[in-house]
């Protein structure tokens, strides 16, 4: 009896060890397994980017029956940090969605395989021209490319057209002050829902963080918020003025509730859908989801660039996105490269647009889907593309910029809650950031 028990236990141990050791690159039936970390979850998806990814994976697997794409969904705000840790531990996914702000660090660490050796060397000049834009060149190092940007994102003003019309507001805004005045007009009790509606929704919490609005205000008036040596450039008169204006929005004009110091960005999106805000500062990729969840006319949700400073019609928004890359130490690097290449194929690019509501990667997709982009409900895609071309700031990739968004939100909290002078609050967090990056 004991002998049988020992044999059973040993078999369990051996089987367990084999599983734990992880033959992740080979599944049952000899298929190659490509693991991918993304915040999307294609399992059971019925709409949006999840559905687009689901269809793309199904199409790819049907064309490559020897490859299995396994998606391991992650939380978007911690996913890239986990990737850094997994890289060091030698267990990173084969395909990784890297958050834009950490792309430079990932390249510097040698975590990403260059696309030239994976597939770009086999492409014709014409094919490369089809995807060659600022996103493609983003993170380019020594002539090599390391990522294809998906979920291309533009941080701008998301607004309700019905309220702009109802309050007879001159639109688009000519200046930041005009935007605040419009927000004031739209602040009040909503007659339909009975809830207090604020003109401008913002979040300054440190949970799930997007850059605060004063970043765009400042970038409209100064070139960069970082210096060439990787230090923060946050104590400029433009930054001080932008923080003061943000503080006024909350405390003087009351177009943003003071509770914003506790909100994270997901709270703002949720509350916008419930009708709490007339406008929010947010991401263009969220427009389809906001329309799907809105408890008012979904077609009234639109996006517009931040106001300009008089010399330009519009101000600066933030260029962002997910740098989809292949892990440099992947054991199935060729298969991972094939999938990455397929994810931006003409066929897949159309799925990202039609099902995912995304701006396409290929110029040829825009041409072939001209009628689609001309539809009024897809106006936000045109504005987003316009933003990418003319009104975008991209965070630097030449040096690491960890937690800059959290630092700027901490500035907002300090000014709003503690009544700290904008310059002092900015200086404090600038020093904190510079110490963190070793400057």
């Amino acid at each position: 009896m004991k002998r049988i028990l020992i044999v059973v236990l040993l078999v369990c141990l051996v089987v367990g060890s084999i599983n734990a050791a992880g033959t992740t690159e080979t599944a049952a039936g000899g298929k190659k397994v490509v693991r991918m970390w993304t915040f999307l979850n294609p399992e059971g998806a019925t709409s949006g980017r999840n559905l687009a990814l689901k269809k793309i994976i199904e199409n790819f697997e049907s064309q490559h029956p020897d490859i299995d794409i396994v998606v391991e969904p992650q939380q978007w705000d911690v996913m890239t940090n986990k990737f850094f840790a997994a890289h060091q531990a030698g267990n990173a996914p084969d395909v990784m969605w890297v958050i834009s702000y950490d792309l430079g660090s990932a390249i510097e660490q040698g975590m990403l395989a260059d696309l030239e050796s994976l597939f770009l060397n086999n492409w014709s000049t014409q094919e490369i021209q089809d995807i060659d834009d600022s996103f493609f060149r983003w993170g380019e190092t020594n002539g090599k490319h390391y990522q294809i940007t998906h979920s291309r994102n533009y941080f701008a003003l998301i607004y309700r057209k019905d309220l702009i019309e109802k309050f007879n507001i001159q639109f688009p805004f000519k200046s930041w002050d005009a935007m605040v005045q419009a927000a004031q007009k739209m602040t009040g009790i909503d007659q339909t829902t009975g809830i207090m509606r604020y003109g401008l929704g913002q979040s300054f919490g440190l949970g799930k963080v997007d850059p605060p609005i004063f970043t765009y205000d400042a970038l409209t008036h100064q070139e960069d918020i970082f210096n060439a040596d990787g230090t923060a450039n946050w104590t400029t008169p433009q930054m001080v003025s932008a923080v003061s204006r943000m503080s006024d929005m909350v405390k003087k004009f009351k177009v943003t509730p003071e509770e914003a110091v506790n909100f994270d960005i997901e709270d703002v999106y949720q509350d916008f859908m419930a009708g709490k805000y007339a406008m929010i500062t947010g991401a263009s990729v969220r427009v389809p989801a906001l329309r799907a969840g809105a408890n008012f006319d979904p077609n009234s949700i639109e996006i517009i660039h931040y106001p300009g400073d008089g010399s330009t019609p519009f101000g600066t928004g933030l260029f962002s996105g997910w740098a989809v890359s292949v892990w440099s130490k992947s054991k199935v690097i060729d298969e991972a490269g094939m999938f990455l290449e397929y994810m931006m194929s003409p066929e897949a690019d159309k799925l990202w647009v039609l099902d995912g509501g995304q701006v396409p990667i290929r110029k040829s997709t825009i041409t072939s889907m001209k009628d689609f982009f001309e539809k009024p409900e897809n106006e936000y895609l045109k504005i987003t593309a316009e933003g990418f071309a003319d009104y975008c700031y991209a965070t630097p990739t030449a040096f690491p910029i960890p937690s800059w968004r959290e630092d700027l939100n901490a500035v907002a909290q300090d000014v709003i809650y503690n009544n700290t002078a904008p310059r002092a609050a900015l200086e404090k967090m600038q020093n904190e950031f510079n110490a963190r990056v070793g400057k």
Partner: protein
Amino acid sequence: MRKRINLGPILIAPGFIFIFMFLIFPIFFALGMSFFKTNFLQFVGFAGFDNFIRVISHTETMNSIGRGLMMSLFAAAFTMFVGFWVAYWVDSRSGFFAVLLQLIGLVPWVLSMVVGALLWKWIFAGDLGLLNTLFRALGLPTINPLGSKISAMNSLIFVVSWRTVGYSMVMLLAGMKTVPKELEEAAMVDGASLLQRIVHIVLPLIKTPLLVSGITVLMSNVNNVTVPMVLTGGGPVNSTNVVALALYRMGFVNNQYGMASALATIVIIINVVLIAGYIRVVKWKF
């Protein structure tokens, strides 16, 4: 004569390997890392005590340690107080409601911490929150439990306590079941008040479960990162930035793994002190 096979080591091997890989090794890895300069998880040079000095000289990090301990102590005290009275009441009853209360009391303990914290966040949310909706319906003025430094900390203590009160109730109830009813009855005949009976009879006789559950709850609170992260995000203005959250952010948001390891070592020392107290208590050496 057949050779005797020693089954013990084989049987405990899987559990030991698991504990070694996921508990013992990471502790020593973090301890080692705390003495090195790091680039993400790579060791790039010996740092000596630099990481510890940087942690200790960082005012907000030190504040987070004090804040974390204070929150943990208050929450544990609140938990034990409420848990004791609920257990005392349940112990004196035997009906359906008493059983139901025990079951309901345990729900927060077994519920996912993220789900529990999110529920409370929605309840406490400003204009659209359940609490204020209720207040408006009753004609009461609305409140903002997460809006100020003090109320946010009070809310955090409340939610952390809510999670653990069922656990302490069950532990204390088990202890109370061992207290002979005759002792309390005799004291009642002698004219002892409720408070006197509790202070002189019940508490001394449930000292061990009281201390064991108290220390367990305290340790659970010190290391709780989920509730503060979901409920308040550490705000407003760091007022609920407890040490577990500061540690998480230092490592997984700021990528300062060397400093985070040094802070983790300090937290481990705090835990070791609590564990030592726990071991003394369970071995009846107090």
